[in-house]
């Protein structure tokens, strides 16, 4: 008797816990179909391209929060740095190509830009961890989440204003990465740039996932996110894991900025919008939930594309956030829930 009641309670718990996720996913599918019917295939493809990018950014945020307990507010600036690096690397090559055409280099040049962005992003991440978080960690761990959050706010402020100061507020952009005719997929025209951006996001996420699941170091990162003391006791150097995690998160965001240069361009405050969309995603999915962030990325992108379709582009700052607030009122810890260490901290 007792067994059966606890069993039913267990099932009910599972159901109610998954209910918000079930509802949101079902509604998203309906919205996707409506969007496809009204806006056509191109809007659906748009959703996927944008969704891939939000997912990539959100995975970085979720990772940093899960492992280091840092609610990262300067993630958009990593995106910005990536965009600049890609521009500075790609543009000279592109100029040279104008004078000395080279078919191979034409195909490869953007990837050189992406790689450079990721590498610089990683270095910047490592430096930030050492300069900002390590001293704070040494001083005190009390009130860590809030202090770390405010520090990243400061970093964001310094980086955006620092870039304005150093190179001015003007936009640096490129018309396109690959000079190839648009492809037609299911009746919709998509540029090669978008397709590459989408697959780059997916491949990066997949590689990150493999790394976290299958390698010794990746396992160590997950261990730290679950129990820091336990990780120390088995011989994991926490500082190494923090540095690596922050470097990786920054590198992925920089990669996103680089691969979307053709869409966003590079300017000091370019990271603002990616930042808050990535934050919608992690709040929707549940802070620190890396797997949820991937699905969440597509849901938020869908919301965004649907808003553009049905209300016009200027509303994309209003309607997605309104929906997000409603969702969070219903499920404050996000639809996939999250039991990350430190969330309960004041």
């Amino acid at each position: 008797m007792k067994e059966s009641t606890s069993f039913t309670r267990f099932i009910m718990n599972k159901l109610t816990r998954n209910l918000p996720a079930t509802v949101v996913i079902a509604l998203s599918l309906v919205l996707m179909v409506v969007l496809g019917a009204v806006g056509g295939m191109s809007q659906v493809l748009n959703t996927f391209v944008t969704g891939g990018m939000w997912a990539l950014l959100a995975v970085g945020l979720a990772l940093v929060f899960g492992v280091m307990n840092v609610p990262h507010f300067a993630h958009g600036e990593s995106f910005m740095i990536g965009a600049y690096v890609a521009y500075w690397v790609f543009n000279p090559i592109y100029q040279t190509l104008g004078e000395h055409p080279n078919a191979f280099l034409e195909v490869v040049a953007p990837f050189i830009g992406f790689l450079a962005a990721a590498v610089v992003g990683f270095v910047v991440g490592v430096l930030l961890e050492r300069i900002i978080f390590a001293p704070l960690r040494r001083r005190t761990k009390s009130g860590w989440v809030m202090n770390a959050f405010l520090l990243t706010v400061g970093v964001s402020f310094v980086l955006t204003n620092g870039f304005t100061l150093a190179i001015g507020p003007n936009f640096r952009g490129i018309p396109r990465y690959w000079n190839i005719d648009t492809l037609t997929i299911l009746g919709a025209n998509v540029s090669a740039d978008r397709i590459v951006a989408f697959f780059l996001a997916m491949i990066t996420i997949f590689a990150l996932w493999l790394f976290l699941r299958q390698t010794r170091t990746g396992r160590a990162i997950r261990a730290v996110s679950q129990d820091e003391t336990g990780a120390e006791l088995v011989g994991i150097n926490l500082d190494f894991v923090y540095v690596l995690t922050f470097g990786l998160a920054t590198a992925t965001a920089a990669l996103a900025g680089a691969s979307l240069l053709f869409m966003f361009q590079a300017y000091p405050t370019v990271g603002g919008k990616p930042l808050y969309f990535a934050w919608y995603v992690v709040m929707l999915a549940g802070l620190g939930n890396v797997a949820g962030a991937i699905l969440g990325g597509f849901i938020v992108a869908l919301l965004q594309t649907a808003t553009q379709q049905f209300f016009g582009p200027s509303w994309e700052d209003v309607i997605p956030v309104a929906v997000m607030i409603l969702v969070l009122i219903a499920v404050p810890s996000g639809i996939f829930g999250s039991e990350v260490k430190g969330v309960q901290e004041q």
Partner: protein
Amino acid sequence: MTENATNEKKNGAGVWGRLTSALGAVGMTPLGVGLLILLAILPLVPPFSQEHMIRWLIMGAFLAAQAIAFDFTAGYINVVNFGFAAILGLGAYTSGILTNTNPSLAIQPGLSPWIGMLAGALVAGIVGFGLGVLTLRLRGIFAAVMAWFVGIGLMGLTRNMVDLTRGPLGMAPRKLFLGTTSNLPYFYVIFGMMVLIYVVLRLVTKSHYGLAFKAIGQNLDAARASGINPTKYRVLNFTLSCVFAGLLGGFYAHYFGSLTPQTLMHTSKTVEVLALAYIGGRGSMWGGMLVAFPFVFGIEYLRSSLTDLPGLHMVLYGVLMIVVMIFYPNGLSGFYYWLKEKIQSKSA
């Protein structure tokens, strides 16, 4: 500072003692009052009586008052209201629209700016109340992010309601004082607002509400366990802070006579106030107020002497905030109390 220490020693005796305790009841010290009086006569004394200097003083008082209202939430209940600038902007736009006489907007109610400012405070207060209710179940960082989202939404809404706000183009509300080009009357208005906000919020934090706020800010669960109803106090705190943000927004509208969503409601504006409050010292309210004036003079000086370096002051500002947060989290007020204790223990 040493002067103050000797003041402290005299505290017990006679008229001075009574004066000190009377000031203490409204959250003031003789030193604080002295500084305020100094500030009040400053715009009458050269070189501060130059119009551009008065402008800086106004900016200083405007930021100081914001820092007080912001710290009332961040420093006491430990919730960073990341939508602060947006709420302030809401007050500004409300007042701007209600006082509008310009046919370029959809409506021309043409109310007096004074009434407009009060209405702005009221509307901001209502939204603050809603924000308080919305974030009550959320802890620290979640509440901050939620407030941020609300701020983004408000800014987006302002940008989109073109009929009322002219959107990104911005609107030009009527000036508060029409007959004069002098900045002086504006200074006394914002100075009065600053003192009012400080005294009111100080009175609140000196009462048992202040204790409850601090208890909630330090440990929500413990506060709840000891019988404090966090709901009531958090909502009250948010509402009060937002009322004053709205009021200040109204002042902004009718002083600068120009409103755009980007320059008023953007998150970076909240960060500016946040940095002031933190450099001044969390939970002191006067720290941010004190820092605001040298800060404005410093950046304005930098800006006027280094015109080719836009954003330098912001960078310095941000770096200072980071350094304070990492190495000296108690800020200026913490330093002051530390110093006071040192001096007292030495003279004792």
